[in-house]
């Protein structure tokens, strides 16, 4: 296992290298440039030229990439072209909030999605199954910004159960549990928005996987042993039916980080997604490149984690 993980981490190096190429050159293809965000009508073309030279933007593109990469391997993600702050420091500052949101949404989607899928499968073609199917289609098809604004309208504006946006009020002076509950109220709605489509996807997957598993010969064997239906489903079938669900596990990680851009914007959640949206508006190329790279590494790690999980569920997979 340790050998496998080392091997996978080594394999990740060329992948990350490829990502740096894509990130850098796609950024270069974008119209405008790092300086367009700073130009005012009074900016002279000389000062613009000076700034370009100071940032090395007059050099050939491949040299620019080389310079960027050289700094990158030394852990320097560069400085924001907008406010001059260190990119990595800004990302790390926003990371905890995003992790809290995505991990909550992630856990929520599986903790809710799997039981619903199993229920749906074991009550195939019943009314509740059809109900859950309709719910899942809604969950998959409703755009998250729409769902988010709907939640804000109903639960924040009308019912006033939850705050409209942000992550904690600056006026709040509580500590310990009170602080936790205070923060929790801010977390509920964005986490729900982020997990909705994921719950639906996990549920559909768990359902079809469970139905397929229940038709397997070994499930009949388990029944022939005299096991109760509960033991048959939750012991013999569940573990097998989870194998394809782990695939969703790996896939949902990039979806969540991507979804964070929209959800964090809608809820004013001070995470990496919001940082990204701000960076786009400010033409802050360094921040965007840093974020893309950082997210890519997180996704790679997430997929590695999913692959490791396979080996825990399925003894036929050994690394």
């Amino acid at each position, binding site marked *: 296992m340790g050998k496998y993980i080392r091997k996978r981490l080594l394999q990740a190096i060329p992948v990350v290298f490829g990502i740096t190429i894509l990130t850098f050159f796609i950024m270069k293809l974008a119209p405008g440039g790092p300086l367009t965000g700073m130009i005012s009508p009074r900016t002279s073309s000389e000062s613009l030229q000076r700034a370009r030279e100071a940032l090395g933007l007059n050099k050939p593109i491949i040299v620019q990439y080389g310079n960027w990469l050289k700094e990158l391997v030394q852990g320097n993600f560069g400085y924001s072209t907008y406010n001059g702050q260190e990119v990595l420091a800004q990302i790390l500052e926003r990371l905890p909030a995003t992790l809290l949101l995505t991990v909550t949404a992630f856990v929520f989607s599986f903790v809710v999605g799997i039981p619903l899928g199993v229920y749906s499968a074991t009550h195939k073609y019943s009314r509740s199954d059809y109900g859950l199917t309709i719910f899942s289609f809604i969950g998959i098809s409703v755009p998250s910004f729409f769902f988010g604004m709907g939640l804000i309208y109903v639960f924040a504006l009308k019912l006033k159960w939850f705050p409209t946006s942000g992550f904690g009020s600056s006026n709040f002076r509580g500590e310990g549990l009170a602080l936790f509950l205070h923060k929790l109220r801010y977390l509920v709605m964005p986490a729900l928005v982020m997990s909705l489509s994921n719950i639906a996807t996990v549920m559909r997957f768990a359902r079809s996987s469970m139905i397929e598993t229940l038709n397997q010969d070994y499930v009949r064997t388990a029944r022939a*042993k005299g096991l109760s239906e509960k033991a048959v489903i939750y012991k*013999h079938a569940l573990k097998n039916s989870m194998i394809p669900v782990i695939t969703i596990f790996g896939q949902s990680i990039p979806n969540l980080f991507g979804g964070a851009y929209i959800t964090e914007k809608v809820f004013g959640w001070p995470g990496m997604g919001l940082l990204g949206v701000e960076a786009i508006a400010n033409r802050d190329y360094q921040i965007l490149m840093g974020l893309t790279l950082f997210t890519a590494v997180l996704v790679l790690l997430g997929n590695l984690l999913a692959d490791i999980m396979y080996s825990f569920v399925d003894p036929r997979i050994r690394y």
Partner: protein
Amino acid sequence: MSLLEVKDLKTYFYTDAGVGKAVDGVTFSLDKGKVLGIVGESGCGKSVTSLSIMRLVDPTTGRYEGGSILFEGQDILKLPEKEMRKLRGNRISMIFQEPMTSLNPVFTIGYQIEESLILHKGMDKKQARERAVELLELVGIPEAKKRVEEYPHQLSGGMRQRVMIAMALAGDPELLIADEPTTALDVTIQAQILELLKSLQKKLDMSIIIITHDLGVIAEMADEVAVMYAGDIVEKAATRELFDDPKHPYTIGLMNSIPDVEEDVERLRTLEGLVPSLYDMPAGCRFAPRCRFACAECEKQRIRLTELAGGRQVRCRRYEQ
């Protein structure tokens, strides 16, 4: 008293295609310590008969429409599910055709055997592990102590079928139902598994119902044979008698289609025609459309099982009187 008495069992399937009368009035009995073979071609209802005895017919489509299955005098079709579960895997066990897929791939074989022991014998984990090793030794698995920790994919097909048998024996069953236990195995492994079943049957004084389409397996194993055709038993006799002197035209056809090793033939002999559809059975004798002795009389009404001398039974108009 017989250990098992199946009387006029009817198991029907309700599907979009109509009502499939997979088992339609099957009657037989089995004494303690005896081996009954049920033989017939695919779709004749032999597997459904065995699943009915376990009461494992898929409840979403299948129904027990009539008859009774008496196990030691108790009608198991009337038992509540909870009581039925106490019989399953305990006093009545079953092994299946596909050893490759019949074991759960994500649990060790030891765990799968121990599960039965803990459930039916009330053993704790440690006792169950010891007994599981004993059972694996009993079914001839070498290095049972080590193998008990292995997963199904680490074993060959023959070994997996042995594990299935060990699992079935966990509850010390009085009745073992073996549904095509050797069909999926190589010929040499087939012989070993049959040998094992035979020796276990003697050692443990079990009754066995062996279901197969292979007359060779019947000849090897069974004391008595029931020949099934299209949901009915068409003939029942002691194994020797059936092979020496088949009565029913279908049985005669089956016997004739066994190729003779001494004879050099160009073509194999077959039974002409097809098995009738489950959803559209002939009103009279179900074999009549394929029978060379059939007459108008045969197609009018269902034929009764006629008792012949020596306890033989045959469902054919030619023996009615």
